[in-house]
């Protein structure tokens, strides 16, 4: 048995005993690079060191065991309190899109709820031992990141990210979160039924994540893969319905990117060669928007985000 497998076993045993999983610094630099850049699949083709890949997969196992248990526990508690919610991203997404709950590591649980249910959701999370982290009450987190982290996690509970809005090429939209909530469908995970986005919303959400990643020059391999898998689940009729929904939600440009990742990658590469920094990010955001009005919103949002981020770092509000 190699050292990686031993480390994973030790981590699993720690989690089973209610202790925290191993800290990130125990991972090799190569593994961190693979995980952070969402490049595991590319690394396989490129012949990356097998030990680093094993370590990355071991980490996905260890983190997702906890994340899955936390997702089902959190969702059951929210449902019992009558808090309407959907679980997005994470191992449940990997399971329904790729048939693999351990494809990528998931350190937390992402839950979307309506603003009117926020305080009740916070009460439920408090009963699970999770409290809103102080800095996540700032304008930057609430308005521009649109989420709050509830922690601390431990060996049993993963932290929970509570989202009131969802990413959109023009900024963040409550309308998108409301639409996803209103159309939630059940996903069986063991004996628990998790409310999750319906198949068309899964595609639109990942189109939005892809547009966000492209706009920020962030690694987008995971979002591309998820969008492709979500699109493959839809037949021609449902894909047509996805296009209609995308139009009504201002996501036509983002959906086009998701359905043609080759064009998206080429454009991103060309953009990166001529425009960098804030200007490049703004240009990329504009390209994913539906029309001039949305593009202006994107620019205003980006400017506001930068200002709020600076203010939050200075502890102003």
């Amino acid at each position, binding site marked *: 048995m190699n050292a990686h497998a031993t480390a994973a076993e030790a981590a699993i045993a720690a989690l089973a005993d209610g202790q925290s999983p191993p800290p990130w610094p125990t991972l090799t630099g190569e593994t961190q690079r693979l995980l952070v850049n969402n490049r595991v699949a590319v690394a396989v083709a490129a012949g990356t060191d097998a030990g680093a890949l094993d370590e990355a997969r071991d980490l996905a*196992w260890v983190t997702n065991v906890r994340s899955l248990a936390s997702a*089902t526990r959190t969702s059951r508690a929210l449902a019992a309190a009558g808090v309407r919610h959907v679980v997005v991203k994470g191992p449940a997404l990997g*399971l329904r899109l790729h048939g693999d709950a351990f494809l990528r590591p998931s350190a937390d649980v992402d839950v979307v709820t309506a603003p009117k249910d926020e305080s009740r959701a916070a009460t439920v999370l408090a009963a699970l031992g999770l409290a809103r982290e102080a800095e996540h009450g700032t304008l930057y987190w609430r308005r521009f990141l649109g989420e709050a982290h509830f922690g601390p996690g431990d060996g049993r509970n993963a932290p929970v990210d509570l989202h009131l809005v969802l990413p959109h090429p023009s900024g963040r939209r409550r309308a998108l979160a409301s639409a996803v909530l209103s159309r939630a469908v059940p996903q069986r995970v063991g004996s628990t039924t998790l409310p999750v986005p319906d198949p068309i919303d899964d595609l639109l959400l990942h189109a939005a994540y892809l547009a966000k990643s492209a706009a920020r020059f962030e690694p987008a391999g995971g979002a591309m893969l998820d969008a492709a898998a979500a699109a493959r689940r839809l037949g021609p009729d449902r894909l047509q319905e996805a296009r209609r929904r995308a139009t009504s939600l201002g996501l036509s440009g983002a959906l086009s990117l998701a359905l043609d990742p080759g064009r998206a990658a080429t454009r991103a590469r060309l953009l990166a060669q001529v425009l960098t920094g804030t200007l490049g990010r703004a240009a990329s955001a504009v390209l994913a928007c539906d029309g001039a009005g949305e593009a202006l919103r994107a620019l205003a949002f980006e400017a506001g985000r930068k200002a709020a981020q600076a203010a939050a770092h200075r502890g102003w509000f």
Partner: protein
Amino acid sequence: MEDAETYARAGAALGRLWAGGYDLLNVDDGTTYRLEGTAARLWEVLQAPATAANLASVLIDGFGAPPEMAARDVASFLSALAAAGLVESA
């Protein structure tokens, strides 16, 4: 366990393949397990519903196990995994 009874992976069982076998999780109670060697091979067979006799034949044909030992080991395997909530009657 009846010979004619068929068994399948339980809905609560999630897993991953690794170089030495399978790691399994009972998602309902959060318990993890590791299967190696012949147990990992039997788990692969359970991807589709199978009888105890089907499973025993894998041990006999693939590993040269004597029939009585194969039947006993399969019964023990199914009993342990059923208790862990990882297999169920199909």
